[in-house]
């Protein structure tokens, strides 16, 4: 490994870390709604606080429970969306590429601060 290799790796790590931090900061809302889009078009919006099961075009089944949304069934072969963890925070999403289904959390209310130091 040369010096430049290490610099390259550190730079990429810093970018990834910064990005992750930004995502954590901006995605800190309370339980809101999940928006389901299929092929770029909005399929429906569902309240995260209500436990319910949503069937999306008979290809995917979304289960909302305990303020989290989880893809429980999909007819695609790889089932990557089913294996993804349940989502609950603003900005998080579950994506099923074969069926072009995107489930993302949109916080209902504006983001609140944990604390303000003066």
């Amino acid at each position, binding site marked *: *490994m*040369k010096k*430049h*290799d290490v610099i*390259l*790796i550190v730079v*990429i*790590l810093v*970018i*990834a*870390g910064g*990005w*992750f931090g930004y*995502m954590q900061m901006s*995605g800190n809302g309370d339980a809101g709604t999940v928006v389901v*889009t299929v*092929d*770029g078009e909005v399929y429906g919006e569902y309240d995260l606080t209500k436990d319910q099961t949503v069937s999306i075009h008979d290809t995917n089944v979304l289960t909302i429970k305990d303020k989290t949304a989880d893809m429980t069934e999909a007819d695609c072969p790889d089932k*990557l969306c089913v*294996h*993804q963890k349940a989502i609950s925070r603003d*900005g*998080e*999403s579950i*994506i099923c*590429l*074969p069926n*072009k289904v*995107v489930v*993302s959390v949109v916080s209902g209310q504006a983001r609140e601060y944990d604390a303000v130091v003066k």
Partner: protein
Amino acid sequence: MKNKVAYFGVFVALALIFSYVESLIPIQIGVPGIKLGLANLIVVIALYKMGVKEAYLLSVTRVILAGFIFGSMFSILYSLAGGLLSLTVMALLRRTGKFSVIGVSVAGGVFHNVGQLIVAALVVETFQVGYYFPVLMVAGIITGIVIGILSNEMLKRLRDIQLS
């Protein structure tokens, strides 16, 4: 070089075999969609031993063949975007002469993932996949280092074989 076609055929076959081996052992590290990218090893070797043009040809041939055998139209699209972006960055970094095989391979691994994610964002018409970027970048670094070390060892042993 007189045996160019033969060598190229062997490289394509090797890359295909690696794709196959990889499809047999899904290495799950908690996050879906992450794999080692063994076939990338062959692309790196081709980049160093045969040249940029040959590496591009090899990468495209491998993606299309592997896609038809193991994947789908979608996986060809993703792999092609990832493969071409990663190879472009690797070729540029190699040209600067400031990076070793490991650095080049790390950049390749990271940009392979970035390219795929960009296509994914375009296909599903959302930028929500942004959440996935940092994870895939770190994964790209790790797999890039592994592939880089392997490439380095292979290149050492291939030193006497002239392919370009």
